């Protein structure tokens, strides 16, 4: 479970996240929905412990922890895949497993489970230089899932992926949700959010605009579709920022 309370972050005096609060429960997929520059990535980076908030708190599984403590409970795939081109898929995963202090037995067990689950068997022994975007994404996802985290952060994970890869990623996220994992997923693709997310958190200019189920947000705004509701909720903030 991830709970965000009154999170604030500014860069050079310009607020990027402004008093943002929301909660993501176990066994659900929570979508952070916002336009480009709305503050989704900054929020995820603060939850993941790589950026220090100016104010506010992040609780993971009900506990207030320091950034390293949060990182022990989290798996994250933020922004870019960032895999090592001169290492094989297996070596990339082994490196991060060892960094997390996983025992060799457990690490091999997890590799044997994660590699086939992501369809990486065929390329596990290949160096990742020259991989397609989909192959890089699957390797990076393997890195985020290797230690079996109960909380998962994904920042626009379907960017640049082809339709079959998006579908297999969607299926994987549904399986993780069924196993009780708390997933926070940022996107600006409304269809993706509608298809996948149990709860939606709409952000504009770093501030919370609405949260609830997709249907609930439509009802709240009186809009016929999530797209209309999103435009309605974010239009005011974006007009004022122009």
């Amino acid at each position, binding site marked *: 479970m991830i709970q965000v309370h009154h999170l604030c972050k500014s860069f050079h005096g310009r607020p990027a996240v402004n008093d943002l609060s929301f909660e993501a429960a176990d066994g659900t997929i929570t979508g952070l929905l916002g336009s480009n520059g709305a503050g989704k990535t900054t929020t995820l*980076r603060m939850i993941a412990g*790589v950026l*220090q908030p100016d104010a506010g708190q992040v609780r993971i599984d009900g506990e207030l922890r320091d950034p390293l403590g949060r990182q022990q409970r989290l798996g994250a795939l*933020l922004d870019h895949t960032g895999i*090592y081109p001169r290492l094989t898929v297996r070596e990339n995963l082994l490196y991060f497993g*060892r960094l997390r202090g996983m025992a060799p037995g457990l690490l091999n067990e997890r590799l044997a489970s994660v590699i086939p689950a992501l369809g990486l068997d065929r390329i596990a022994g290949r160096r990742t230089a020259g991989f397609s975007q989909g192959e890089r994404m699957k390797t990076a996802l393997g890195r985020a899932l290797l230690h079996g985290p109960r909380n998962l952060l994904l920042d626009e994970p379907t960017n640049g992926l082809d339709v079959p890869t998006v579908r297999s990623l969607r299926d994987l996220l549904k399986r993780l949700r069924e196993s009780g994992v708390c997933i926070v997923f940022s996107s600006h693709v409304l269809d993706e959010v509608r298809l996948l997310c149990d709860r939606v958190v709409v952000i504009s200019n770093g501030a919370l605009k609405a949260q609830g189920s997709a249907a609930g947000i439509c009802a709240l705004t009186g809009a016929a579709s999530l797209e209309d509701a999103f435009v309605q909720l974010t239009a005011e903030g974006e007009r004022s920022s122009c």
Partner: protein
Amino acid sequence: MLTPTLVVACKETIDALRDVRSLVSSLFYALMGPLVVGLVSAAGPPHSPNGAKVVVSMLSIFTLVAAFVGGMSIAMDTVAGERERHSLLPLLLNPVPRIDLLAGKWLAVSLFAIAGLLLNLAGSALVLVLAGIRVEASRPQVLLVMALVILPLPLLAASAQIAISTLCRALKEAQTYLSLLVFLPMALGMLVVFSPAPRPWCGFLPLVGQELQLQSLVSGTPVSAAQALLAAILTAAAAALILRFAAARLHRDEIVYGN
């Protein structure tokens, strides 16, 4: 089970060993001194005592420089390169203190810097033998003492290179500044060689102290063990301080947002 620092050091070493092009360029860089001096000697054999002295002084400056070149490629790749390739953020997502991550990178860079230095010493000894210059530095036991005296330098070089690399956003930027850093040992080495009488406290300073001790060893003058040890301690302390500065840099927002 390896500590996170050793895990990072092993990964960086394997990664760098697979980067064959960078390895070859580091090899040429480390052997630059013996190659240049070898060519000068071949052009006009320095049989006179003064000629031999010039050759040996040149070699000692290049040895000082060698401590800064062996790890240069890996130092720029391991921090600025990680930033450019967007792999630094996933690394920082692991529950490992940033100083431990950086210490692992420093170990790997130091390893390559020491390898460059030893290669240079071996090459220098070979050039002296081939040029027929009989000095202390061509004796194996003196070479060993020289290696020990100068050993803290690659550790300092690795720290400084990593610290500079944390200030850079891209490989090209890091390459520019790390290439400029090589002029520091060159300039200080020349200062020592051409200085008529360096002050006694200079022997304790990082770089200057090691160059003075190299000069003494080459010319057969005994080196004060206490002075060499104190210079080594001060050099190692400077390396640790610089590494601390670099680790603090990794906590800044722009490290994550810098590209």
